[in-house]
C-alpha cells in the first residue's frame, strides 16, 4: 500500500467516523434537551400534519428565507439544490452496480457544480458588498464558503479539465466500504478535491453546518399550536429550577 493510499484510507475513515459520531451525539443532545414551554412562531400549524408540511416546505423551498430576502433565497436555494444533485450524482462512485435513477440524473448532475459555485459566489459577494452582512461575518464564515467553492472548483477541474482515472477512484471508495483496500490513484487535483471533502466532513458537527439537523429540532418551527387543547409538559417543565 502506497503512502498516498494509506493516508487517504485513514483520512476517509476518520472523516466518516467524525461526521457520523459527531452528528449522532449532537442529534441525541437536541432530542433529550427539554422544551419547557410552547413557543411556535407564526404561521404556526394547529396539527401534526401541518407541522410536517411546514418543515417539508422549509427544507425544500426555504419558505421563510423567501419571505425575508429574495437574493439570499436565490443564491442559497440554487446552491443547496445543486449540491443535492451533485451529491446524488456522486452515488455512482459508491455503488456497484449503479442504481438506475443515479444514471438518469448523471447528465444534469454533471453541471450541478457550476450552479453550486454560482450560488456560493452570490452568497460570498454579499458578505463583502452588503454592509450589514459584512458586519456579521467572521473569518470562519468566509473560510466555509472558500471550502465549498474549493470543493466545487476542484470537482469541476477533475471532471471537465484534467480528467481522472474514475474507475480507479471508484475501486478505492468501494474498497473502503468493503474493507478491501485498493490503491488511491495519484492525481494531485483529485487528491486536493478529496482532502477538502474530508475536511468538510470533519468540521460538520463542530460548525454552523449543524443547521442541517438543527432545523428539524427548532421548537419555533416544529411545535404544534394547540396549547389550550393539550397541556404542554416537558420532563422538567414543572420543576421550579427551570426556565422558559
Amino acid at each position, binding site marked *: 500500500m502506497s503512502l498516498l493510499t494509506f493516508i487517504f484510507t485513514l483520512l476517509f475513515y476518520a472523516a466518516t467516523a467524525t461526521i457520523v459520531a459527531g452528528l449522532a451525539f449532537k442529534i441525541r*443532545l*437536541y432530542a433529550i*434537551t*427539554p*422544551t*419547557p*414551554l*410552547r*413557543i411556535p*412562531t*407564526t*404561521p*404556526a*400549524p*394547529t396539527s401534526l400534519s401541518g407541522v410536517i408540511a411546514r418543515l417539508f416546505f*422549509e427544507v425544500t423551498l*426555504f419558505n*421563510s*428565507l423567501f*419571505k*425575508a*430576502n429574495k437574493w*439570499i433565497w436565490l443564491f*442559497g436555494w440554487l446552491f443547496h439544490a445543486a449540491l443535492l444533485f451533485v451529491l446524488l450524482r456522486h452515488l455512482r462512485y459508491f455503488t456497484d452496480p449503479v442504481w438506475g435513477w443515479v444514471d438518469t440524473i448523471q447528465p444534469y448532475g454533471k453541471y450541478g457544480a457550476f450552479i453550486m459555485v454560482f450560488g456560493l459566489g452570490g452568497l460570498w459577494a*454579499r458578505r463583502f458588498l452588503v*454592509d*450589514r*452582512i459584512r*458586519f*456579521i*461575518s*467572521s*473569518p*470562519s*464564515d468566509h*473560510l466555509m464558503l472558500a471550502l465549498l467553492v474549493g470543493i466545487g472548483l476542484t470537482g469541476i477541474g477533475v471532471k471537465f479539465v484534467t480528467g481522472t482515472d474514475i474507475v480507479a477512484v471508484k475501486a478505492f471508495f468501494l474498497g473502503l466500504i468493503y474493507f478491501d483496500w485498493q490503491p488511491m490513484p495519484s492525481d494531485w487535483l483529485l487528491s486536493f478535491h478529496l482532502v477538502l471533502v474530508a475536511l468538510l466532513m470533519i468540521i460538520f458537527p*463542530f*460548525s*454552523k453546518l*449543524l*443547521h442541517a439537523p*438543527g*432545523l428539524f*429540532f*427548532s*421548537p*419555533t*418551527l416544529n411545535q404544534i*399550536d394547540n*396549547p*389550550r387543547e393539550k*397541556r*404542554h*409538559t416537558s420532563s*422538567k*417543565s414543572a420543576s*421550579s429550577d*427551570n*426556565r*422558559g
Partner: protein
Amino acid sequence: MIDFETPVLKEYPIIPLIQPGAMAHSKPYVAKQDLQEKIGFPGELIDDWQEVAIKKMGELVSKSRALMVFLDTCVKCGACTDKCHYFLGTADPYNMPVARQDLFRDVYRRYFTFAGKHFPKLVGAKDLDKDMLDLWYSYFHQCSQCRRCSVYCPFGIDTAEISMAAREILNTIGVGQKYCNEIIGKAQTIGNNLGLPEPALADTLEGLEEDIEEETGVKVRLPLDEKNADILLVTPSADFFAEPHVDGLIGYAKVFHAAGLSWTLSSHASEASNFGLFIGSYDNMQKISMRIRDAALELGVKRIVFGECGHAWRVAYNFLNTLAGPFDFLDQNYPIPQNISEVTYDLIQRNALTLDKSANDDKVLTFHDSCNVARGSRMGDVAGGQFIIPREIIKATCNHFYDMADDTIKEATFCCGGGGGLLTDDLVELRVKGALPRMEALKQVVDNHGVTHMVAICAICKSQFSKVMPYYGFEMDQVISLHQLVGNAIVLNRSE
C-alpha cells in the same frame, strides 16, 4: 435625558446603512438592591460574576432545546438583518437580530464549543469581560422580544429566547433592570404592576360605573372579587385608569352586560401582564401565573378571560396551562383561557350584541397587530385567527377601516417599540426610534385614506403610542382600544 432627533418619516421605508455605536449609550436604569432581592436575585454585581454567569449560561442551554439549537444553527445568512424595528429606527448594527444574538453566541462558543475554545478568533468567539457585559446590558435591553426576526429566519431562530436568557443571566449576577424588576415585585406582592391596592381598585371601578351610567343611563357593573361569578376577567392594570386603556375596559363591561354574562375582576390577580417573561425567569413567570389560578379557585369561577394585552396573552395562551394548569376545575366547553376579543367575536357571530356602526362614524380606522398576539399566540380555532378576529370586530363596529401595508401587519407586524420591558422613560430615545417603521406605515394610510385612529389590542402598545406619536406629528389620542370601538357601538337596553 439625552437629546436625540426624531427620525424623519420617509415616503418609502429605506434600510439604513449601519452606524456602529449609534445606540451604545442607551441603557435602562439598573435595579437597586431591594428590588433585586425581593424577586430572588443578588442585590448588586457579585464578585465572581464571570464564573457564575458562564455557569448559568451552561445551565440555561442544557435546559432549553430552543436556546441550544438557536445557538448552533445560525449560518449568518443575513435574512434577519433588516427585520428589527430597532435596527430600522437606529441603524445600530447590534440591533440587527443576528448581531444581537451573536453577543450571546460569541460568549457561548468561547466557553462551550470546541471551535470557540481552541480557535476563538477564527469563529469570532469572545470572552465575557466587563466590556461584553456592558454591551449585553445595553443591547439586550434594545430587544422588545417581538419575534419578527423569527418569522424570517430559515431556522426559526427567535432572538427573544436569547435576549430572555441574557437578561436572566444578568439578573443572576446582580445586574437587573429597574423597570421590569420593580413591576415584577409589585405584581407578586400587591397583585398588579401599578401597585394599586384593593380599596383603590374598588374605588376606581365604582367611579367607572358612575361614568358609564351618566353617559348611557344604564347601570353597567364592574364587579370586584364577586364569588361564584361565571367569568374571571384578568386584564392589564393600565386598563383601570390609563388612557386609552380605560375605554377598552368600559367596552368589556358593556359587552358582558349586554350579553348578560356574570363576571368579576379579582384584587388578588388584578394584572394580566406578566413581566417574568421579559426577564426570562420561569420562576417569576410561574409565581405571577399562579395568582390567577388561585384567584379562579378562590372565587369559584367557571371561565378565565383575558383583557387586551399582547405579551399577557402570549403567556396566557401558550404558557398558562403549563405554568399553572391543569385547569380541570373550569368549564371545559370554553377555551382556557379565552381572550376578550374571542368572547366578543363569538357574541357578534351569534347576533347576541346590538351594534350601531354609525357611533364610530367620526373615525377612519386602521389596526396595529400587537407583536405578541401576532407572533406569540393565537385567537379562535383556526391558524391566523388572531388576525381575523380583531379585524372582524372592527368591521362589525365601524364603517371605515383600512389596513396598513402588507409587510407591516399580521405576521409581519412591527412592534410598537415599547414591548419586552422597555416601556420606561429612561429608554424614550429607543422607544421613539423603534416606532419609526410603524409610524411610516401609519402615515401612508393617513395620507391615502384619511385614517384618523389606530386600533390596538395591547396595553403596552397603547401606552407606547400615546407617548411617541406626538414625536412624529400625530396626536396622542389617535391610538384607541379595540373595545372602545365596541363600547361606542354597542346598544344597551335601557329598560334593564
